[in-house]
């Protein structure tokens, strides 16, 4: 299969859906002429014109809410939020409007709204440009949350989001944009929500890894294999809905779990996953559920500090060793 980057996969998904359905359009700050500050929509203005690839003023609440309004009358907007850190500038339109519109209207509202949001620390971008806000909206019923780790998943999950009729927060990790991988060319290739991916099979320890922690977990698994510790790596791919079954199945096999994400440890996505396992899979557990995540401090600017705060391959390795030694 041909290999393309995560960023190209996302552009391909958007472009294909825009060709297929005139209701789909892209809107956000600097997505058109600039091609997105991450370059994800580079070239799309030329193909689709400035009505369907729209630069906006710097007004997150209006942009998100306008996406919602357009969705309610039949469009399928893709809204780009340049940094996930800015989500709270338009938070109400997500939490109280988009997420609840269908339920409050007695199931009548359709909300085919995709919010493409970057997450993660790109390196010395400091506390307001480095956050991984995947869990900020997990407590809010009505919204779905995806966090792909590979180009193929990025493409397939994004298409599912755009074709669906529910609001989706679609988190793209900034440091994955340049990563390449095989991506099907089939224009109808999609990846369903709620299906975790067992990225690597293993016997001794399960690592449930979110987004950029998937490649890190794989690197850790390689190192650990050399020590005789066999690691199973699972990527949930969507956090809401969560594929409990696959996770529990793995824990039943390994009895040991690590949950890894770049978000801060406290109340990150791992809190929910760990709590779910402590509720539904506790009988299989043979030791603590260890969460590997950023320390609970704002992301620092200085690389020395930032590296210390962010979770890494070594943290997963250390956690796995600890579990395996019990």
């Amino acid at each position, binding site marked *: 299969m041909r290999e393309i980057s995560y960023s190209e996969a996302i552009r391909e998904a958007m472009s294909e859906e825009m060709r297929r359905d005139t209701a789909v359009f892209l809107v956000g700050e600097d997505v058109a002429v600039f091609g997105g500050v991450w370059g994800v929509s580079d070239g799309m203005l030329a193909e689709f014109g400035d009505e369907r690839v729209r630069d906006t003023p710097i007004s997150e609440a209006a942009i998100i*809410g306008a996406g919602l309004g357009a969705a309610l009358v039949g469009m399928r907007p893709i809204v780009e939020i340049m940094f996930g850190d800015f989500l709270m500038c338009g938070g109400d339109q997500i939490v109280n409007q988009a997420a609840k519109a269908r339920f409050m209207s007695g199931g009548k509202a359709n909300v085919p709204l995709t919010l493409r949001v970057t997450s993660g620390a790109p390196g010395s971008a400091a506390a307001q440009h480095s956050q991984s806000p995947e869990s900020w909206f997990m407590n809010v019923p009505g919204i779905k949350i995806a966090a792909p780790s590979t180009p193929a998943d990025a493409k397939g999950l994004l298409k599912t989001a755009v074709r669906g009729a529910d609001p989706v927060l679609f988190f793209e990790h900034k440091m994955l944009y340049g990563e390449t991988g095989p991506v099907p060319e089939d224009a109808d290739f999609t990846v369903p929500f709620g299906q975790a991916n067992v990225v690597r099979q293993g016997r001794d320890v399960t690592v449930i890894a979110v987004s950029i922690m998937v490649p890190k977990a794989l690197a850790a698994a390689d190192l650990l294999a050399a020590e005789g510790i066999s690691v199973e790596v699972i990527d949930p791919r969507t956090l809401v809905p969560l594929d409990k079954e696959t996770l529990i199945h793995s824990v039943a096999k390994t009895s040991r779990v690590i949950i890894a994400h770049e978000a801060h440890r406290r109340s990150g996505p791992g809190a929910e996953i760990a709590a779910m396992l402590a509720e539904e899979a506790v009988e299989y557990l043979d030791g603590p559920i260890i969460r590997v995540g950023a320390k609970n401090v704002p992301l620092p600017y200085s690389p020395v500090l930032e590296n210390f705060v962010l979770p890494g391959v070594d943290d997963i390795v250390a956690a796995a060793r600890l579990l395996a030694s019990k």
Partner: protein
Amino acid sequence: MDITHYSHDLLAHLFQRMTLVREFELRAIEERRRGLIPGFIHSCVGQEATAVAACAALAQQDVITSTHRGHGHLLGKGGDPKFMMAELAGRSSGYCLGRGGSLHIADFDLGILGANGIVGGGFPIATGAALAFQMRREQRVALAFFGDGAINEGTFHESANLAGLWKLPVIFFCENNLYGEGTPQHKQAPIADLARRADSYGFPGVSVDGNDPIAVYEATQAARRRALAGDGPTLIEAKTYRFRGHYEGDPQVYREPGEMAAWRQRDPVPAFRARLLESGLFDEAQLVEMETAVQTELDVAVAFAAAAPLPVVDEALQGIYAETHEGLVF
């Protein structure tokens, strides 16, 4: 304005709907007192002209976003009092199957994109709907109702800017009833004529007498024409007054003495009734007939609501997502 220029149908519609709104509110208040309605009510008694006449200037295919004080808007846009009353009563036959209540009534077929419990929550939504209409080259406009309090939310500014920039077919319709909850308008903004704010976004703003349905109708129609011509938004500020508390039960400690009495002199429903009679276009018997019909319609609505089934508990777990998955709601 000389009302004899207007069609009999339009005038009858305005009177009928204004009466319906007034009486709906009084019934709802009564039924809340009697226990049929469990939730809060923010009644729009006194603001019937704004709600009804603004909607009368819209076409069926146009859409509105409404507010916490939305019953008038909904009835104005064609909402059925039966389904509204049933919703207020929390019944399965209500507009939202009992899930939304007064604050969240929506009917997408009627172009009602939803009441809203968040002050300022509707601005971006109306703006987005208008964007869709513009992109699809449809002859439709979106109208956002909001209050004098709501205009101070950031969403007003962001939405008005976007709409002005893109010349979207949207009408920002401010019902300035002089209060946001217990805080008077002059303690919420340093200017009295909120229509002035349109200038910041390069589109016109007009202030009208919100208790005069004809003035409201004219202003809204002009705004709609402008929007459809591709000239962009209009901000309409309609000066009006609410005759009851912010919500039913509000002690209203904040009113200026004499203010209420003065506004009562300008009660939009009897004032318009008198004008219809004066004009000679309607006689007393015709108006009474319409009023009676409204009462009958409301009798039916209340009976419908009272007889409507309560939801069964499983319904709480439905209609949250279009595509559902195991474990999503538990």
